């Protein structure tokens, strides 16, 4: 346990960054697709958590706040960007390793997952990302999104159904 008197906002920031930067950017990519945008979103979230440190003072709370900030900022970014569709079209996917069939398949599969996420309504997408990428419990998702557990359940079941439709082949195919 860190002593909050010793663990300053700067130290906290550094440790949170080391532990969660990559995962949170990836989470944001699942929500906004574009990697550069995701980096911006998560960077801003880290700055915000630093500013709130005097009130958080606890690594668990800080991480919960960070997650919340990332999800909310990802949502605002999308809301303020009328050109989402275009973004999706030109988004930066990991470049395929040329020539190898397996890599091409992998790239196609990853693109399909991100495409499918992009087609879900915002809330469903958030619930699906928090549940399947971060493995959060229903209660944790409810807290992060500020909605009831019942709402989480219903978004999750609709989201699952939609992803089953959109990703049918990939869900069955274990290659």
């Amino acid at each position: 346990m860190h002593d909050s008197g010793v663990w300053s906002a700067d130290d906290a920031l550094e440790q949170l960054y080391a532990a969660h930067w990559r995962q949170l950017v990836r989470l944001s990519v699942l929500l906004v697709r574009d990697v550069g945008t995701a980096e911006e979103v998560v960077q801003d979230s880290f700055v915000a958590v630093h500013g709130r440190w005097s009130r958080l003072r606890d690594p668990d709370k800080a991480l919960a706040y960070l997650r919340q900030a990332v999800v909310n900022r990802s949502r605002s970014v999308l809301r303020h960007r009328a050109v989402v569709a275009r973004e999706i079209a030109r988004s930066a996917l990991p470049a395929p390793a040329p020539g190898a069939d397996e890599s091409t398949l992998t790239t196609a599969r990853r693109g399909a997952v991100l495409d499918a996420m992009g087609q879900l309504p915002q809330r469903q997408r958030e619930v699906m990302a928090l549940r399947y990428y971060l493995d959060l419990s229903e209660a944790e998702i409810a807290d992060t999104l500020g909605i009831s557990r019942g709402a989480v359940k219903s978004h999750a079941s609709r989201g699952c159904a939609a992803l089953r439709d959109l990703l049918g082949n990939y869900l069955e195919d274990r290659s």
Partner: protein
Amino acid sequence: MTDRDRYLDARLSELMSDAVSEIEPGDRLASIRNETRVTPMSARRPWIYAVGGAVAATAAVITAVAFAGDNLGLTGSEPDPANSPSSVVTPSESDGTPGTSETPSSTPSASELTVAAYYLGDGPRGPRLFREFDRVSAADQLAGALARLQATPADPDYRTPWPQDAFSGASFDGDLVTVNLTDASLHDRPAGMSSDEAEIAIQQVVYTMQAAVQSRAAVEFKLDGNPIDQVLGVATSEPLAEAPQTDVLSLMSITSPSEGETVSGSFTANGVGSSFEANVQWQVKQGDSVVKSGFTTAEGWMDKLYPWQTEAIDVSDLTPGDYTFVAMTDDPSGGAEGHGPDVDTRTITVE
């Protein structure tokens, strides 16, 4: 859950993790550090510090506070004070002696203005600032704002700790707002005033002056032309920046209706707030009973206060009389954790 469901769940987890598994984000730690560094507000003004314990701990965020018109109290209907950046409102400028108690409204060019004034009120986490738009007769925004700081707020829930003759004048040189104290009587924290209240009172001046000049200018307190080392016991030897909004402002502040406003048929309420998930709850109460309620969504939440506005609230079915309009932040825990909602109220008369 069937085996099939469990299989699909596991598979979805795999697919999702796999989809982003090769994304290696660039290293932004240096940029983040840069944005959260404590000292510089800008390269030109590296000497600005925030005041106080809790405030100092988060002073870094000053660098990240964006200029936001509405949060500065911009009403849209007022002349832009930025057009006169070097206005000087020291009422005694004619004789050059600071410290006279002549009121700003006696300057020849006095006119009716609306100023955004911040007042202390009680929030769930202690004293916080609430914003009020007040009509005042004054030479300009700075003089009007200064007059309101020393006057009784329209809303009886608010208070100002500054006595009538606390300030003798204020000026703005485009970079820095200077506030002149009338005498040394406010140097120390008065008996009975908590240090929290004193710090919020200093921020009350900072926010109100910044609203008056429409700029996140630093505010310097002076006595007899020299910087004063403390005001109300709060260190003021350096010019002061605004503390983060979420630390000093009430997270819910009603702009309209104003206190005592008469409404008929229907009215639209608006204000600023930072509420969980941007949900703003409102009620119309008669005494203690809620006769109307609803919610609206602010433009954002969390890092600062964002504007919100209700739909038209129909009051044509209410018996004419006095009611209270209440706006509050959303408390997803229902009061089970934390301090409960931030609330602002206005007395309205329905006719």
